[in-house]
């Protein structure tokens, strides 16, 4: 069984290799974004050496690392699922001998691994040559970052599964999918680190799953978190990984019923 899922990951990886125009355009898009946010933040820093506990160099590092992390966790699983629901192919997927949602997650992982190795890592090397950023030297912090990144990936996949499956109930949920994507980018700390929000907003964001996707992994690396802070950050991510399974299984159960009704 496990081999089937590994195969799914491999196939998606190869598929990504085939879309070479997308590969190049992805590089351009990410460089553009890192550039915009770098200059904006540096303009804000101006003369000030530190804001909200982050120095200018740390901020630059944060921008670079959070965008490169996005390349890993980002995928269009929600759009794909919604598409498969709309055109009815999901019914065929369901009679195959595997877990549909797990297959989707594996596809996302295949995509993520592709971009991690062919995109994020070389990208990070190039970025570190152009912009004044400071990465920690090799050590345990990279290991905890990797773990945190993986947890962030899982949380993002879970959110995508939820939005995608909602297509069972709202036939045209493309608008919602787009809105979700922007919301994740804004509230996960990609555009603005959570600690820069007004206090009242921070309180709310602390109760939402989005920070687990981008802010926590990036800050672990940039600040080299350790001790209690590190444990707490990883714990928050872990809790969200499990908590989000509940709505997924509820929606999934309901949607299979909906499928029976729609099908026929």
């Amino acid at each position, binding site marked *: 069984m496990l081999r089937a899922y590994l195969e799914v990951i491999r196939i998606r990886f*190869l598929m990504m290799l*085939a879309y*070479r125009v997308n590969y190049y355009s992805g590089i351009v898009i990410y460089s553009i974004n890192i550039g915009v946010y770098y200059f904006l933040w540096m303009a804000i820093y101006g003369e000030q050496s530190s804001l909200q506990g982050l120095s200018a160099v740390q901020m630059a590092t944060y921008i670079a690392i959070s965008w490169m992390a996005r390349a890993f966790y980002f995928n269009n699983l929600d759009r794909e699922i919604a598409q498969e629901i709309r055109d009815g192919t999901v019914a065929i997927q369901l009679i195959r001998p595997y877990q549909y949602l797990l297959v989707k997650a594996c596809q996302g992982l295949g995509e993520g691994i592709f971009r991690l190795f062919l995109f994020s890592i070389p990208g990070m090397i190039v970025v570190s040559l152009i912009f004044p950023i400071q990465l920690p030297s090799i050590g345990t912090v990279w290991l905890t970052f990797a773990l945190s990144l993986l947890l962030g990936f899982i949380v993002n996949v879970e959110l995508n599964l939820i939005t995608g499956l909602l297509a069972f109930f709202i036939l045209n949920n493309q608008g919602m999918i787009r809105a979700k994507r922007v919301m994740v980018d804004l509230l996960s700390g990609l555009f603005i680190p959570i600690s820069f929000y007004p206090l009242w907003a921070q309180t709310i964001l602390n109760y939402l799953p989005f920070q687990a996707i981008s802010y926590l992994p990036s800050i672990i690396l940039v600040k080299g978190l350790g001790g209690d802070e590190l444990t707490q950050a990883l714990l928050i991510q872990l809790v969200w990984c499990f908590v989000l399974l509940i709505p997924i299984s509820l929606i999934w159960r309901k949607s299979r019923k909906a499928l029976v009704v729609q099908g026929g």
Partner: protein
Amino acid sequence: MREMDAIYAEGLTKEFKVYQSRGGLWGAFRDLFDRHYRIIRAVEGIRMRIQPGEMVGYIGENGAGKSTTIKMLTGILQPTSGELKVNGFDPHRERERFVKTIGVVFGQRSQLWWDIAVQESFRLLQKVYQIPPKEYKSHLERMVSILEIESLLDQPVRKLSLGQRMRCELAASLLHKPKLLFLDEPTIGLDVLVKDNIRTFLKEINQELGTTILLTTHDISDIEALCSRVIMLDKGKIIYDGSLTQLKKVWGGRKKVLLETEREIAITDFKSRTVDLPVTWESTGKRQYVAYLEQGEVAVSDLLARVVQDIPILEMQIEEASTEEIVRKIYQEGIPDA
């Protein structure tokens, strides 16, 4: 003379670049930065003359280059080399003026707008082709009545069945009274009645308006019903261009005449009666005989004239290879002296 041809093609060729992927994971990595390609010739040096008013069947196996040719003739693709004039235009270079003189129906792709009612599509096309309202109205009415699509006009295209849609497509392609009509697989997936209706309609517009028709199809019966001339394509080259009867005559093989007589006849009796004809006889059962006639040389009537005089015949049957069989044979064996 060239101005007279509806289609004039000389040495028409289309090449495509086809990217090849390397095998394996490492190969895929390398493809990301450096891809190999090879050039294939989809259509190779085609020569074609079609006179106004002709109905021509264009046949060939999948991948023989039919669609590519049609796309060059309709101005969609630019030929790699060769000379091409359709209705006196260079289809690709003078596209916008040229396409006003042609109609196109792609069986597998709708020309109509999916979400709006059929008559709205027609109206939009009226504007697109700048057809004067009066002319448009009378012409449309005629087509609606021949094609029996009156009741479909206010339905959105996506709700039509394939046969209904195809009839509407035909009307749409002829709204601007084109001199030349291209039909790519017009009867694919249709039932017999609709096929019949469409064939009758095509014959009518060909006779009344003098519309030249070029038709590609998998269904040889389309061609038998409509076309006097066939152009056959194989691997990008034309391997036959001529009449359907000639095709049958040359590649039809032997004709078989089966006879059942009232009384027993000696086989030698038959043989002596037809000794100057290229016929071989065989007895296949009690009072049952078969005559094989070599390749269309002899008319069946010639044979019968000599036999029926004083031999009472109960039943008679003539068998010849169907066009479909002939075509299949040609594809399999190729034409020896093409």
